[in-house]
């Protein structure tokens, strides 16, 4: 799920057995997470290229195991390209319920070693183990133990970078992938960092890298040697200072346990462009329910509802509306999102997204009901669905309008359970 690793040389600047004095930060990244989870429950796939992602025409690769990567298959690649490069691969649709179960279990393992865990996504987290030494040993021994446990308990591998800062820890894990452990000693940071290409720096994408290349700057070390003033014209004042700091291995960010998301959102790309209003409405309803459920799980409510609409020609429109009261109720979200969609859409839609912004903690349990609102309204209904989903998996209860023609009312369990 991480970006393509900067092409790097293995060097003696980092490795599993180096001095970890002063290194308190671990960056743990699951290797080809979705694919690994699939392989863990179907070990016969282990020797084959496994690709997980949307299998339709417009699907995108979400994860590819290392066997598949040998064929040039990478995450975020269009599925059609992947199939062309690796026709013999095993292609699987994503089972997010299973991934999120494993993700939770793995995060729980991390939490046994330190309370300071900052999850970055389902398969990635920063840990600050500065207070764990007495109980669990040094940072690198904690890293080794976590790697062993994740592998033993879940049959998947992860890579851990150990360093004094988040930035270096993350770079270290990127360099050590897959199934690796890398310590970057405090004294060795610059030796590790400076040979790397500029794209290794956090915040440098293709465009910035091209701009820096025009200045003749290709490695991190070259950036470090240039006064930040010289970078300003290319990347702007703030980014210049930021890049300069990073190039010297300085990153003051701490591991934030309660990372407050700025927004919660979900989007869907259709198989073929959709023009029918009722089909759009169904998609918006499904997205609204999903976003609201995520907001409730995170304990946040938002006041601004935003929609993203992309037409077949990739023209993308964003529209938003701010409500008088924050909400975490899918039905409210749907109503506003649908108003925005109806007022905006003028052509067949390729992609549609719903997002809840302006998040605040969901009022410590206090909320503003409507006048005369029954004590048990939509909010309670949706919360009950949350509980059922947590117990029985996604899709056990779903709005009737989202049922497809093949959804029979027989009690067969959730329609999305494939295992």
């Amino acid at each position, binding site marked *: 799920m991480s970006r393509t690793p900067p092409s790097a040389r293995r060097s003696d600047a980092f490795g599993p057995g180096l001095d970890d004095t002063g290194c308190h930060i671990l960056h743990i990244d699951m290797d080809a997470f979705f694919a690994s989870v699939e392989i863990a429950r179907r070990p016969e796939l282990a020797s084959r290229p496994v690709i997980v992602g949307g299998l339709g025409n417009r699907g995108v690769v979400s994860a590819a195991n290392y066997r598949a990567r040998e064929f040039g298959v990478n995450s975020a690649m269009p599925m059609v390209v992947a199939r062309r490069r690796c026709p013999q691969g095993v292609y699987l649709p994503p089972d997010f319920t299973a991934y999120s179960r494993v993700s939770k279990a793995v995060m729980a393992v991390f939490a046994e070693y330190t309370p300071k865990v900052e999850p970055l996504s389902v398969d990635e987290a920063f840990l600050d183990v500065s207070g764990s030494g007495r109980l669990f040993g040094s940072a690198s021994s904690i890293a080794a133990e976590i790697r062993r446990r994740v592998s033993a308990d879940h049959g998947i591998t992860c890579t851990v970078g150990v360093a004094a800062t988040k930035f270096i820890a993350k770079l270290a894990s990127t360099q050590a992938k897959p199934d690796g452990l890398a310590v970057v000693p405090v004294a060795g940071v610059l030796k590790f960092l400076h040979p790397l290409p500029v794209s290794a720096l956090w915040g440098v994408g293709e465009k910035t890298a091209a701009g820096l290349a025009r200045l003749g700057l290709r490695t991190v070390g070259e950036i470090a040697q240039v006064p930040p003033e010289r970078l300003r014209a290319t990347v702007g004042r703030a980014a210049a200072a930021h890049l300069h700091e990073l190039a010297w291995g300085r990153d003051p960010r701490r591991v934030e346990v309660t990372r407050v998301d700025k927004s919660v959102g979900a989007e869907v790309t259709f198989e073929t462009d959709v023009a029918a209003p009722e089909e759009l409405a169904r998609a918006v309803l499904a997205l609204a329910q999903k976003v609201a459920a995520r907001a409730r799980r995170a304990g946040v*409510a938002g*006041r601004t509802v935003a929609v993203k609409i992309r037409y077949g020609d990739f023209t993308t429109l964003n529209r938003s*509306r701010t*409500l*008088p*009261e*924050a909400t975490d109720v899918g039905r409210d979200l749907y*109503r*506003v999102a649908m*108003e925005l969609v109806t007022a905006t859409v003028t052509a067949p839609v390729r992609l549609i997204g719903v997002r809840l912004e302006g998040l*605040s903690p969901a*009022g*410590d*349990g*206090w*909320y*503003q*009901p*409507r*006048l*005369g*609102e029954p*004590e048990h309204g939509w*909010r*309670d209904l949706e919360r009950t669905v949350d509980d059922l989903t947590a117990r029985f998996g996604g899709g056990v209860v779903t709005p009737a309008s989202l049922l497809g023609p093949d959804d029979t009312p027989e009690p067969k369990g959730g329609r999305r359970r494939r295992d």
Partner: protein
Amino acid sequence: MKLRVDRDALADAVAWTAKSLPVRPSVPVLAGALLSITDGRLTISGFDYEVSSQVTLDVSADSSGSALVSGKLLAEIVKALPAKPVDIAAEGSHVELTCGSARFTLPTMPVEDYPALPDMPGAVGTVDAAAFAAAVAQTAVAAGKDDTLPTMTGVQIELTPSGLSLLATDRYRMAIKDLDWRPDDGDLEVTTLIPAKALSDTAKALGARGGDVTIAVPDASAGGVGMVGFAAAGRRTTSRVLDGQLPPLRSLLPATFAAELRVAAAELGAVARRVSLVAERNSQLRLSFDSDGLVVEAGGAEDAKASEGLDCQYDGEPMKVAFNPQYLLDGLSAISAPQAVFSFTQPGKPVVLTGGRLSEDDTNDYGGYRYMLQPLRFDS
């Protein structure tokens, strides 16, 4: 077109028209104020396809005609003029405005492109202008601002032979005001929903001048009530009305109450404003009270906290209730009365706020107004 007019009268008239002009007009001519002279009277009009305003005043005119100039610019100029007679004359594609030794030349827009203002519908009755303005202000505060629920952004006017009622709600609180009026017809029944902002602006402007306001609605038998008009002393305004009607708000008002809390409105307002300084937006103001007094609290375990006590009249079981701070403050000021009376049915159910007298000598009538707000609920 050539005329001479008193500066103050002109300033007043132009200001009246200019406030209904659109800030971002869909077509340029809508930013204009139309000046026209017929029979020695000057009419100034503004229109944005939703609200039209027109004012007529006596002037000394040499010739009739009309001219369309930027309303905003005209209003600013006239406001700044010295207190001397103002001469206005159309000269080709310009309007010349002179006042004392000040001289302005304004470009004009083509009059023929200006849309015709809607005709004033038929008058159905009159109401005291100041009382109407106060009533509109009391109800418009509860109207919604969420454009996705257009119905909630209106104030509903109900005209019946026995009275005039104004109602508004944003779903979290509602306000109802009943007042007297003088209907022209003994069996008129009209309910119409007017955009809250347009109605507030109009009522306020007309109320400031005193006297009576004439209410005009199209004959219901000629189709739906698509617009509504208000007129007083040479001024008239029309507004489009909103589709639909508010839900039956009166049916939400409980018939009986279990308990009543009386407290000095201004004092509670001051306390609530102070205490809510620590309440972040979307958070709650908690009131707890018994026969000994009322305590207002805000803030939480780890955040800043505040509390303040004040006297109250209450006899009943000790009670706690939590409100959105702004909704409470809006209500306390909307009752426009020295005493705030909170009426409760059951915990968690809507609370009705009305105004009352504090002293026997107070002869004002605070009746006819109810502000109902939904307390916050706690769910763990």
